């Protein structure tokens, strides 16, 4: 079943066209990787799914993005509701200046959840799902800043999951992490895809090959190729894709 369905998406920063006529569907409970050189539009495209680009003044969208069959840019859509459903993890870990517990509870609290017992329960679940519980269960009251970079990133993943989204967007989630932390995050992605639809932007081709079911290659604002990851990395259909994954440019 299609979770996300983008139809003829054009996107502009002022006069600059950042995305050119992109159409793709993403299956439910699968992992899709976006690859491509810097500035190719892959992050911009990702940020359309939870309307994060709304925060940037002077942008314009043409086309439709459907999640669960509903146009997320429709006037009837509440952006806050959408963002609860479509969680996001950023390039650099960005925990809030709060305790570990309050970081994970944040999404629930700002969405009006008051039940302390429920919040405790969700926080524990989210931390367990992010494979961080055992490392932090004895120090939930401590500052999130005291955690290592890799732990902080898993905390941010837990934070995103606490509000029970069905889609998880990851914008180069491991690019600021060391190899061991990266491996943990990748392992986590594997486990999470039984529950979530995951879209991940990455500069790391091996990472795309390891974690994703399908891969999309972006270049200069266009989606050059979108296919099964295995096919993209062994027998790509386009020469540009071939050149990029073999490191001839980018």
């Amino acid at each position: 079943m299609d979770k996300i369905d983008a139809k003829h998406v054009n996107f502009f920063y002022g006069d600059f066209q950042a995305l050119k006529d992109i159409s793709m569907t993403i299956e439910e409970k699968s992992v899709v990787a976006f690859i491509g050189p810097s500035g190719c539009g892959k992050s911009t495209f990702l940020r359309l799914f939870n309307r994060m680009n709304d925060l940037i003044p002077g942008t314009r969208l043409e086309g439709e993005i459907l999640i669960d069959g509903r146009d997320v840019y429709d006037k009837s859509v509440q952006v806050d509701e959408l963002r609860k459903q479509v969680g996001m993890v950023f390039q650099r870990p960005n925990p809030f200046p709060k305790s570990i517990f309050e970081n994970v509870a944040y999404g629930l609290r700002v969405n009006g959840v008051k039940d302390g017992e429920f919040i405790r329960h969700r926080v524990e679940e989210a931390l367990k799902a992010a494979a961080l519980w055992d490392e932090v269960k004895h120090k939930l009251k401590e500052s999130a800043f005291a955690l290592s970079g890799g732990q902080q990133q898993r905390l941010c993943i837990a934070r995103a999951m606490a509000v029970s989204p069905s889609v998880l967007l990851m914008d180069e989630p491991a690019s600021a992490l060391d190899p061991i932390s990266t491996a943990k995050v990748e392992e986590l992605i594997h486990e999470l895809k039984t529950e979530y639809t995951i879209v991940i932007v990455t500069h790391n081709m091996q990472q795309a090959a390891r974690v994703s079911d399908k891969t999309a290659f972006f270049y200069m604002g266009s989606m050059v190729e979108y296919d099964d990851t295995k096919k993209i990395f062994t027998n790509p259909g386009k020469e540009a894709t071939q050149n990029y994954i073999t490191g001839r440019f980018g």
Partner: protein
Amino acid sequence: MRQDIFPLQQGGRKRRSQWLAFGVFGLMSYSIVFILFAILGFIIYKGIGVVSWEFLTTAPADGMTGGGVWPAIVGTFYLMAGSALFAFPVGVMSGIYMNEYAPKGWLVRFIRMMTNNLGGIPSVVFGLFGMALFVKYLGFGDSILSGSLTLGLLCVPLVIRTTEESLKAIPDSFREGSRALGATKLQTIWHVVLPMGMPNVITGLILALGRVSGETAPILFTCAAYFLPRLPRSVLDQCMALPYHLYVVSTSGTDMDSQLPLAYGTALVLILIVLVVNLSAHALRRYFSNKVKTN
């Protein structure tokens, strides 16, 4: 050969001119410290003999030629608290609006320019304006209320600027992280941005108050009393204040020889208050930045 291109003595000359240049730069910066210590030393030397428990806790007596400065200390604190009550909400809210809400463009630039101009107006002009608006037009009379509002106006630009700058220093990734969880702009500001910026905002406010505590001209027109036998009882009372008291005892009176030491004593008390205020600003900043991480 290389030696011909770079004459040997060049190295020595370069080192010497370096030494000379940075020697002069260094001298300039040390001389500032020296001047500060000279002022402090002079005031302490002249004033220390006068400052006693009695000086701090009694009212002036014998037509300003004796007694202490207690009412002036109390008045100065009232004025600082009053101007903080006014300047803090106005300044912080404006700063938040300008950095977080207002669309970037000519309007914000215009507001910022006007704010800076407001900060550049001489304090004596604030005094005159405060007299016209608060004392006369609004009918608050010569009072702590008029004085606080005038002093508050004076330091609002500083509070706006420090608020804006401390919020600007917070990376957007924190705002995005919060918005991505479904938080509104206001929730993001309240729960993430403000707690992170608060240490600097508070420090800016307290430093502004340090400046307020020493201002003389604005309260001259709006609040300060030459002499009051009792402490003020309401915000509509006049009060004494240290900077004005200092001016009074050193310029007008009947017996200069006995008044001048009192002036130095007053100056010492004023300087100590400013010093304590500034140090507490730093202590608070430290307290906040520890607290913010763990709460």
